[in-house]
């Protein structure tokens, strides 16, 4: 079989022994180099841990009221108490559950819908593109938060409705990013090669185009997680959030505004939680984008 092969390709001996490290190793070596990503990973890990174990970690019941109202941070109440005497740390820890869940689930939903629309629009073009993109333009004309407020006002408050509202509001961002990438990628020769092989439209879209379009979508997703957490906080602030009996970061922040001159800790700590979470997700998103780029991972060595 091989007797008519005259030679192995020349000049490549340097690359012959290339050994790609395992995915975990790549991840670890990347984290060692990128301190910001490491910070993001640790913070997010701590947050997820505290969200999962909030019930056991919290020193008090988050909704237990007490006469010790608006106490300064102390050893009994590390972050102080609010106007009803509830322990702020316990409320923030329980709020982590809602905030992280809302942030991540809205982005997953919004990204799935938006990316699907964008890829279909960009791939098929013509009237499919026109219809989808005119809708996206329409949504683009309104700020995401206004759309979320409107949708919650229509559907009513509650965790599920807040998640649906925020994720619908993000569809246009993802659709736009995805479509732009598809328009570039579908001109590539490997797409022509896939068509030549008889690959179906679905195969070309999801196996060939989408994996190559992921980098900017990932960036968009991490930015959106941050905005979704802020949007949930905003909705809670306006009284359109998950519900007044559930502690969320946004609600705690909203409640603090009447007492900001007397109890600074009520505003500062929820704000800090939101800020650190958003920051660490952004750091992690940057790292994720770099790592998903197969070219950069191996070339960086």
């Amino acid at each position, binding site marked *: 079989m091989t007797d008519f092969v005259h030679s192995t390709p020349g000049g490549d001996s340097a690359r012959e022994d290339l050994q790609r490290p395992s995915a975990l190793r790549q991840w670890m070596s990347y984290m060692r180099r990128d301190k910001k990503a490491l910070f993001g990973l640790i913070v997010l890990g701590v947050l997820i841990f505290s969200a999962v174990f909030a019930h056991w970690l919290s020193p008090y019941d988050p909704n237990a009221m007490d006469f010790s109202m608006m106490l300064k941070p102390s050893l009994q109440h590390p972050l102080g108490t609010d106007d009803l005497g509830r322990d702020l740390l316990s409320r923030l820890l329980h709020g982590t559950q809602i905030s992280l869940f809302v942030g991540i689930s809205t982005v997953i939903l919004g990204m799935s819908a938006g990316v699907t629309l964008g890829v279909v629009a960009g791939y098929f073009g013509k009237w499919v593109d026109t219809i989808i993109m005119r809708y996206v333009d329409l949504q683009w004309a309104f700020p995401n938060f206004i759309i979320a407020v409107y949708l919650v006002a229509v559907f009513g408050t509650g965790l599920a409705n807040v998640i649906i509202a925020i994720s619908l509001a993000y569809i246009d961002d993802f659709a736009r990013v995805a479509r732009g990438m598809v328009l570039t990628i579908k001109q590539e020769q490997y797409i022509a*090669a896939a*068509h030549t092989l008889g690959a179906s439209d679905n195969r070309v879209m999801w196996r060939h185009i989408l*994996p190559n379009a992921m980098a900017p979508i990932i960036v968009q997703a991490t930015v959106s997680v941050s905005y979704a957490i802020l949007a949930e906080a905003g909705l809670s602030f306006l009284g359109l959030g998950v519900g007044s009996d559930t502690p969320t970061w946004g609600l705690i922040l909203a409640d603090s505004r009447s007492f900001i001159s007397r109890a600074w800790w009520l505003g500062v700590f929820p704000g800090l939680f939101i800020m650190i979470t958003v920051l660490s997700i952004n750091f992690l998103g940057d790292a994720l984008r770099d790592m998903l780029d197969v070219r950069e991972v191996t070339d960086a060595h």
Partner: protein
Amino acid sequence: MTALTEIMPRSDAASDCLMEVRDLALHFPVQGGTLFKHTVGQVKAVDGVSFSIRKGEVLGLVGESGCGKTTIARAILKLVRPTSGQILFDGMDLWQQDRAQQFAYRRRVQAVFQDPFSSLNPRMKVGSTVGEPFRIHMPSMKSAEINGEVRRLLDICGLPARMAERYPHEMSGGQRQRVGIARALALNAEMIVCDEAVSALDVSIQAQVINLLMDLKDEFNLTYLFIGHDLSVVKHLCDRVAVMYLGNVVEMADSETLFDEPLHPYTIALLSAVPVPDPVSEASRPHVILTGEIPSPVNPPNGCVFHPRCPRMSDACTRMRPLLLEELPGHHAACIHIERLAAQFTRPGQHSIPKIPDIPTSN
């Protein structure tokens, strides 16, 4: 439109004709307007091209950039729909196929693309790329069987089996092109369209890939449509050669004949532009230097498209579009001044046409 009987040699009508391109035209609209888009013109990328490919032969398609070579390849691969004309494969019109027939056609005609850097999906390992034809066409095949086939194909193309675990960016250009060839071979294609398949490679790698292509042709009884602009490569590889200029085939003949005794003034100019690696004969041989630029295919010249640059241009050339006629047995040319040209350029003993050097083919 041109009469087909005249431009098709009779022997091609026989059963050994694998693909027949009849009067193929591809015009792309040029859109204009700031607010409302409308068509302001047409790029006549391919404008009335006819040729046929016999079973087991290598047909070369040469010409400058932008002359429509790649567009023809894209039409043959059913990546674009022609404006008019037909492409018959094994007697069946490509645009009369139903889905099942088209799917079958995809198995029988494969392609090797120009750019080994962009013709492989950067996110797919080589093994997945080469195995993909099986996943598409033989969904019942198990992964282990596919991996076996992938190893076999890589071996045929001179790549070690461990390359299956590589990503394209971890390979050299020549290795990537071998992967592209392995992918094209996967489904036992009968015909392979090589669109500038070696143009992007270093000369030494070019020779290896060309040798591989020729070995595979013998081994698997392949038919090639080889598109290129490197005349020495085309001469080495092709049985017959068609020369294109601005969307038209201007000359078509057996490789030997075309390179030794070209008839069309464009072919003559093209061949004289090939450098000869001998300073003495390079300095002494006549050069035909074309003046002017290649005209825009949006607004091609009337009559013969070559007339603005043609040293033989006469009044008739500006009015009449020459047909691709069989001037000598098996030798087609589209020029109304063939006799005069033939007398001047192909008289025995007068070697005004440079010999194209063979490329090194050390095995």
